[in-house]
């Protein structure tokens, strides 16, 4: 299972890419493989305030709807509109084209609270 070294991770299978003050967020390769066939993504609204570990988006497969949690406190500054037309980008490119939203972090140091790649690899066994 692909777990890029340069990202941070949550226990609930989101990944975070730090981009200065911002954090780009998606779900991991492991998560998309568990879900398979993503058919709908409910994106957050730009401007929405996110609490750490608060529900912020929904990813739906044929079988089930799964909540996506904000890894870090902040405000949503960008969402991936491409997922509206092509939700399967989450399956085909979870760490790239399949990103879900970008947060402006209230305090960028919060990323240190997240798992690094080694810890996440261990968590998913």
């Amino acid at each position, binding site marked *: 299972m692909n777990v890029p070294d340069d990202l941070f991770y949550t226990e*609930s*299978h989101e990944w975070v890419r730090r981009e200065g003050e911002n954090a780009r967020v998606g*779900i991991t390769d492991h*998560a998309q493989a*568990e*879900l*398979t*066939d993503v*058919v*709908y993504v*409910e994106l957050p609204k730009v401007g929405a305030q996110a609490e750490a570990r608060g529900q912020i988006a*929904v*990813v*739906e*497969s*044929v*079988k089930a*709807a*799964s*909540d*996506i949690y904000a890894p870090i406190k902040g405000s949503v500054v960008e969402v991936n509109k491409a997922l*509206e037309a092509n939700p399967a980008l989450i399956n085909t490119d979870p760490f790239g084209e399949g990103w879900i939203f970008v947060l402006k972090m209230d305090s960028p140091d919060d990323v240190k609270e997240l798992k690094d790649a080694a810890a996440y690899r261990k968590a998913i066994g």
Partner: protein
Amino acid sequence: MSFVSDAAQKTTPLYGEHVGLGAKMIPFGDWIMPVQYSSIMEEHQAVRNNVGVFDISHMGQLVATGPKTGGWLNEMLTNNIDKLEVGSGQYTFLLNEGGGIIDDLIVYRTAPEEFLLVVNASGTEGDFAWLNEHINDEADLENRSADYGGLAIQGPRVVELFETFLGKEVDLPARNQIKAFDYNSSNLTIARTGYTGEDGVEVFFPAKDAVMVWKEVLEKGKALGIRPCGLGARDTLRLEMCYPLNGSDLSPERNPLEAGLGFFVDLKKTKFIGREVLIRAKEKGTAERLVAFRMKGKGPPPRPHYPVWREGERIGELTSGTLSPSLNQGIGMGYVASPHAGIGNELEVEIRGQKFPATIEKKPLYKKS
């Protein structure tokens, strides 16, 4: 998101095969079953376009024998057993005294006074207990579920598959017929039926031969594009056809008339459990009806228990819902108040607090072109 892990469950003789193929296993009633091997979408399309194989070893087989078995079963089941020739089957219901559905099943007449009842996995023990409570002295009922493995082999290329299996001249049973075949020093009981809307069979065999039959089917089906298919595709395929799922669309609180399945109830029979309630329901009409609908445009897929609205009034809730892989649109079924149940009516499905438009359509939702 979180992924539920499962506790110990009953397994079929094919459990090891499923795990070996990388299937995702989920609890299904008391059982642990494959929900998908690779992708529900791909498994669904394999059945619509080529052929797919499902493990149905969890389903129950009850065998009734004895001099007056037919007469007795006719008082237990809604459809008319007198219409069954030897070698034929029919879809039917087992009802409680209130007309509510205990189970939906297929009953086959396998000899003049011998019947095979193929029942839902979750219903097997309850059906067996209920039937035994009402049995007469001359009939005998056995629960043979553990003795049999079963596969549903479904899709337009199923006949081709069986030609490689049983020879070019193989004479598969006709729709709703059942027939026994010798194969590889085992015995296959093949019924031409299914739960997908495609041509197909359900095959039963001694449980000890399950792995052999499964492997042979996958091997011989390779050239035909066969895929092992899980409960996920089984659900999307059956819902496109509006075939009900007991426990979701059917329950002891619902009768077959509400569910729109009166065709499988013979009210001309003078006696069967639940008859009086159904006759009254037929005269007065039912308060709610099970309707099929399709979402308009793009939106989140409908799911069981989502509320249904019409003209500002909450009129019911969904019992089934999914994204239809064939139609690429949300589809579902649900009970709604009868005055709103007309075909063509516009509904709204409430999803996470927001309402999305849908239209009631004629069943089935998917028609083969």
